[in-house]
């Protein structure tokens, strides 16, 4: 899957597109693994779901795995533009408090960079 990676104010912004399911999930994990070592202490990651059409348990697993790695380094992970289906999956898994949810990229970057 295509994943757009940018950096804003020290926050790594990942924008995957397509279906975040099954084997496509490993692409996201690889991208995250290659970006994180360069992000130093307290890594800040923002995942933009605007172009993600579907996410399954594997996709959620990757998000949680990333959260675990980032939390160990004292970092934070935020999400934006989450559609109804993905939001339901996150709510049902009682993870809504795990990922900081923001209404816009600017708001997220400002909050995470602080």
């Amino acid at each position, binding site marked *: 899957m295509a994943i757009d990676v940018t950096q804003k104010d020290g926050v790594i912004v990942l924008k995957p597109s397509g279906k975040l399911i099954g084997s496509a999930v490993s692409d996201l994990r690889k991208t995250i693994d290659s970006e994180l070592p360069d992000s130093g202490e307290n890594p800040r990651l923002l995942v933009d779901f605007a172009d993600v059409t579907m996410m399954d348990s*594997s996709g*959620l*697993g990757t998000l949680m795995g990333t959260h675990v790695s980032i939390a160990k380094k004292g970092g934070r992970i935020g999400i934006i533009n989450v559609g109804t289906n993905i939001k339901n999956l996150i709510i*049902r898994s*009682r993870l809504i*408090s795990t990922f900081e949810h923001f209404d816009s990229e600017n708001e997220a970057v400002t909050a995470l960079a602080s």
Partner: protein
Amino acid sequence: MKFASSGNSMGRLLSILSELEQIENSVISGQDRFESLNEAYLQLTLDAIKANEGAILRLDPAKSHLYIESSIFPHPISAIIPIMAEEIDAIPQSSPIHIADLPASLTELQDRITQQLQGFGADVWIPLQTDGDFIGIIALGTSSIGIEKQTWVDVLISTVANRVATAMAYSRALQEMRTAKLRLLLLSDVTAQISKLLDVESIEKAAMNHVVSLLDSGMGYLLLGIPEMRQLEVRSHVLFDADSPADLHGIVIDLEGQEGESPAFSILRDVANSGISQICNDANQVMPFGKRNLIAVPIFRREILGVMVVCDKAGLDDASLEFVDEDRILLEAFAYQIGVSIENARLYQEALERRRLQAEMEEAAKIQANLLPAAQPNIPGYEAAGLSMPHHDGVGGDYFDFIQEPDGNWGFVIADVSGKGMQAALLMVMLRTSLRSEVARQNNLLAMTMRLNALLCEGSISDAYATFVYARLHLDTGTLTSVNAGHNYPIVIRCDGSVAQLEKGGSVVGMYPADVLANIAEYQQETVQLHHGDTLLLYTDGVTDALDPNGDPFEEQRLCDLARRIRHASANDICTKIRDAVTEFQGDTQQFDDLTLLVLKRK
């Protein structure tokens, strides 16, 4: 005219021309090759000047010496006469050449001929040419009638010489055609043999062995592409020449190019990048692959698979020959066939691998199927049923179970592990084993869930987790206590048609250690009373996330409505009716997740 002294000169002339015509007809009709008639040609030429001795000396293909094509001497002679390129250039075009008029630059050649032909002193040389290229000499001995320049005899023997040269060229062309035909027959035979091979390595070896022989060459290499690396790797080589260069097996050529490397590397890279064959007959450019020359052709399918290289073409006596266009055409045809064979072999190996994976998946599916309860439990005053339909690959991550606890109460579990295939199957086995072990320890549900989380975190594969609901039925009171770890909300359908969802619960298990989990969502348990006719419905997201052809999900509301409508059916029927409704809802859409249901109904 000197010959005019013979009264039969005209008759003899006519006779010679008639005989010449017969010989040529024989050559042109293909009945006889020039090699079998050359003596007749020579005899005819000797007859024309009434000489007794002579030879047709032919230039070898490497242009380094003359050899005897045919001779009429008192004793058989075999000889090789070295000839220099300058001497070839110095041989006059006019014909015939009287030895007395021979240029000084050719006297050494004449001496060599005389010496090699055991003292045979030719009076006349008739150069043989086709298309302006020197191809040999007819050397004629002393004429008994004497030959003077500008006589009709000169004209006659020149005519004969031209015919001889034409016949020789024709014969050589015919021979080459026959050789080409033979090569094509060999090629089709070889490709038929190779197409039966099913592994790439055997194909590489067989291909190179055959192609180097077919092209009369000393060595050959097969390089295959490593696409993602943009490199060519020497995979197979054949070295017939004992004095071959060093072993090049495993050598890699970078397709992006490097400066200061051997020109041969550039040639092969150009062939791989452009898909156009190249011939190089410059000995300075072909190291380390060859010593004299090389031909390189691409191996094509939809894209370039590699490059086939053949080096050091040689003739008889190890004389160096140049690669020509015919070699290119032959090698390209061969490389095409090898490309097809390599691709087929790769597809075959992939199919084998798929079959192996398929067998592994089937095994995993069997393991999973064996983990599910074989029969409905017999619980006084209740009926329970469950079903699980794996997604299209057959190995999913859903699990349900009925567990009788040590105190006689019953536990009902439904779970969904993340991922699919072997990883999911493994995690499911871990979950089931841990859960049954915890149930046997009679822990309370919250402690049990924390223990499960810790066990799965320790042994789990990264990024993998499980969601589950465990509902404990107290048989004496009809109360149901449940815990939910990140799973879909259980639904309770009352006998009167009212529906409630059990929304209390914590996060998934197997992902977060206990201390982190405490900050996310702590587990909570929930208790409801089941009355007569009430139903508990547990399900996985394969039900609510099932998509119709428009991409719309089934959703919980539709499930609640359906459950309400069919609440009076048996537990088993409720399961099958929901499954059928979801299948119908999906239409032709492929099921991408497992679908699992568990129904407990108080009679």
